[in-house]
């Protein structure tokens, strides 16, 4: 099976301090990481590879620094990695991003399966998987919690109301996976070393993908950001940890939250 995983590099949220009261965001440490949803997508893919063998290709659109995310994907078990980077992509909105990714999938000769995270760890739009599926005219299953391969198809369990539904999709298909269902593995140390020393990340620009200006014209424009309203303060328990814990437990018991 040939599987293409769509991944995204994001600013590490652990390095950001948000002060709602001052409506300010402080970046204490500017470090970019492979987003947790992308890691889950990779994990789902690598499990298919472990189970039945597969060629895993990681694909990311981003700034040149996103190469690190692709190398991490190689370290985790990817077989090849492609970075789609061009200044012409800088203004890309979600439809444009999906166009670029779909063009790259086609340039790679298509795939049996395309896997992405349910949403990204920063913008959380949750559209990429669906839009790429539309652009490629592949079947799509979103919010997948269990994923297994079958001859010519995949079987996926997705959220369905309060429970789950299991569906079978004929290949080629796109699935987006739930972050919580695929906790990522650790990369083997030797693969980490090789990801930088031995293995390559191929970079393609707009011209390589045959994308003209029309295909890169965004439909949305960014017009600023704002803070959510402050959370209402509930009951606060103060004091030393031991006594505060005691107080908290008593309060929770009184409200029958715990037995």
């Amino acid at each position, binding site marked *: 099976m040939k599987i293409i995983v769509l991944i995204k590099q994001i600013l590490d949220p652990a390095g950001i301090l948000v002060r709602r009261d001052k409506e300010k965001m402080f970046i204490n440490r500017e470090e970019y990481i492979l987003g947790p949803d992308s890691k889950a997508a990779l994990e789902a893919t690598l499990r298919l590879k472990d189970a039945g063998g597969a060629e895993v290709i990681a694909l990311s659109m981003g700034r040149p620094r996103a190469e690190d995310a692709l190398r991490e994907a190689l370290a985790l078990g990817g077989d090849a990695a492609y970075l789609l980077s061009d200044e012409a992509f800088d203004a890309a909105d979600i439809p444009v991003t999906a166009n670029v990714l779909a063009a790259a999938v086609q340039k790679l000769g298509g795939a049996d399966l395309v896997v992405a995270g349910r949403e990204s760890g920063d913008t959380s739009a949750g559209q990429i998987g669906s839009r790429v599926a539309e652009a490629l005219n592949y079947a799509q299953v979103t919010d997948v919690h269990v994923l297994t391969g079958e001859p010519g198809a995949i079987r996926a369990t997705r959220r369905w109301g309060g429970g789950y539904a299991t569906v079978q999709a004929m290949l080629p298909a796109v699935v987006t996976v739930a972050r919580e269902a695929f906790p990522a593995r650790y990369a083997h140390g030797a693969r980490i070393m090789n990801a930088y020393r031995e293995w390559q990340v191929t970079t393609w620009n707009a011209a390589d993908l045959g994308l003209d200006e029309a295909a890169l014209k965004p439909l949305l424009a960014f017009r600023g950001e704002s803070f959510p309203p402050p959370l209402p303060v509930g009951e606060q328990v103060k*004091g*030393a*940890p*031991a*006594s505060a814990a005691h107080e908290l437990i008593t309060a929770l018991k009184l409200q029958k939250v715990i037995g």
Partner: protein
Amino acid sequence: MDLTLNEEQLMFKKMFADFCTKEIRPKGEHIDQTEEPPEDVLAKAVDQGFWAALVPEECDGCGMDVYTFTLMLEELGRADMSTALILSVHNCLVVKPLLEHGSDQQKAKYLEALSVGERLGAFALTEAGAGSDAAAIKMTATRNGSGYVLKGSKNWISNGSLAGLFLAFAKAEGGITAFLVEPEMAGVKVGYREKTLGLRGVPANTIYFDSVQIPEVNRLGAEGKGMEIALQALSLSRLGLAAIALGAIERSLEEAVDFSMEHIQFGGPIALKQIIQNYIADAKTQIEALRSLVLRTAWLADSGQEYTQEASIAKLFGSRVAYEVTNRMLQVHGGYGYMKDYAIERYYRDCRALEIIEGTSQIQQFLIARDIYKAKGLEIRP
């Protein structure tokens, strides 16, 4: 000036050394490993008068002066620090305040029991939210008909599960007030025993006071006098801790000297190495400096002079030196010092407590600095 011991002090010193070496020292390892409070040792110590060290002779006590008392703690510290701390708490923090602030009725009721080993004293001041900031205690004493109702809990109470009498502090209408609380009173519960780095023979418990009805006669001193009583008692016990530290480092030095003469490296005992000699010489120097400090502070106390600041100094210096000396003496032992088969391993852990208990070093530093600035008219706050 005369620093020689008088006949009585000499006699006491010999008695302490004999008893501690024979009866307590051999138990030290067992006490630490099993974490069992040394009840048998404590029972034997009753006959030696260790429970009534500071009780006047006319009340059937030993009537030791403070200096003699520090000699006792020094020997105890040399033999086993857990036992030393238990007896220090009992004498300094319960018996002594009772002697100084107790009514005749209170003394009649408790002094004998405290002296003959029936009731061991414990000092219930610290709370979860009130460690260094002792005045921040939350336990309350509410007046009702015949006395007070105590509500609250205390943490880290040394001697907790062994205690026969708590000197407990609570906020009453008139301020922080001291109470004599018997563990058999309804509502007193001995809770969780802390697991500690060292001093593992000392049970340090959480004590719950769950609406404990206390008769008014069990209030020690007036309402609002509690902090004064506590601080006065702590002065003596801080001096006591310095004396225990002194005994502990003397023992550490003994252990290291013996080891260094037996352990052969590079063709001879390591005692022949200059660095080992330097470590030993430094330790001895620190021991004698501490001894002088303890002696002088005890003399201040015995001659009726103010010694609060000196007690803080003795505690600060004694605990620091205790750490430094045990650390170095452990180093002399090399790998053996890290093994539980050697006493130095235990002393290193035990001594670490001294920089924390009964007022951390930082609090002692604050108290000392506060007094210095106060004399110059500047008030500083913690």
